[in-house]
């Protein structure tokens, strides 16, 4: 399975949650598959989906799912100690780990080679870390939501992208409708 197939499968779970989605093709895919006001699409700023999601989870009670990539987590590796040391029970970091920089031409990441992001997260102090196969993502994500415990999910999948249009929505519109969904 590739990322877009996973997103299609978990879209019914994501629909009712606050979602912060990673820059580039992941946001384009989620936007094309199931655009929701409760989705915050990152149009720039690689690496900060997990930080934005944690800040949001710590500031209000609704569950927050940050959809991140292995390349983006590697670019902001300092996020994992911050997450571990400031736990929010309503926060889920879903790392779709396809071992490649999907938005830039599928160059391999170190997560696809020797580096285990699940082990890194554990070493950083994250208490609930689940590594799963792509096919199990929906079940693992639902269990994490039901548990009410901060969970880091590392979903191992194949490299590849669906051809989706660029998001042309104005960033202030994305932010405004997202904030209305947060406070609804």
């Amino acid at each position, binding site marked *: 399975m590739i990322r877009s197939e996973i997103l299609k499968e978990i879209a019914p779970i994501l629909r009712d949650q606050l979602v912060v989605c990673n820059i580039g093709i992941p946001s384009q895919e989620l936007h094309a598959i199931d655009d929701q006001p409760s989705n915050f699409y990152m149009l720039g*700023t690689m690496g*900060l989906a997990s*930080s934005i999601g944690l*800040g949001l989870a710590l*500031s*209000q009670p609704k569950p927050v799912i940050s959809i991140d990539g292995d390349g983006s987590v590697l670019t902001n590796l*300092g996020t994992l100690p*911050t997450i571990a040391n400031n736990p929010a029970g309503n926060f889920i970091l879903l790392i779709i780990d396809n071992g490649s920089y999907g938005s830039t031409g599928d160059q391999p990441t170190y997560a696809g080679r020797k580096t285990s992001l699940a082990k890194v997260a554990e070493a950083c102090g994250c208490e609930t870390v689940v590594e799963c196969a792509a096919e199990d993502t929906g079940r693992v994500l639902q269990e994490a939501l039901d548990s009410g415990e901060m969970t880091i999910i590392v979903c191992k999948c194949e490299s590849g992208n669906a051809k989706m249009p660029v998001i042309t929505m104005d960033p*202030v519109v994305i932010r405004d409708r997202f904030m209305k969904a947060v406070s609804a």
Partner: protein
Amino acid sequence: MQEDINKRIVDDFVANDVSFVTTVPCKQLAGVIDEIDARKDIHHIPSNKEDEGMGLCAGAFMGGKRPAIIMQNTAIGVTINTLATLTQYYRMPLPMLISYRGELGEPVACQVEMAVHTKALLAQLHIPTYHFHHRDDVEELDKIIKYTFMCNKPVAILTDASFWGGY
């Protein structure tokens, strides 16, 4: 006296309903960070890098809290992309209390290398910038915080060694 200024700064943040503060330490800011950490009205999240801190602040703002970041001016270099493509692009307010290292009284030569670029970079980004040099300059902080949340922009408050009373 030093304690008074730290307390005064944090009082202004609290009075303006700033309740989520992320910090990356600087020697000059140690007292104000201690004060932030001690206040029950403020959720203090130390971060490992300033762009990460700006991400946390963006999330907190969208969650309904008023955020602020405390950092050193050397970090302007690593946060330009985040300021342009997140904070400014999505039109989010962010007071940035910044220690202005490399100014008069600075003992570490390398700090001057970023000091000479600090104001130019902030000007290039069209970030409203205030420079606290004399102790009385703190009188403007309340208005600067109000201005930040009025216009939904990142705003820089550079605080140099003279303001902090030396090292």
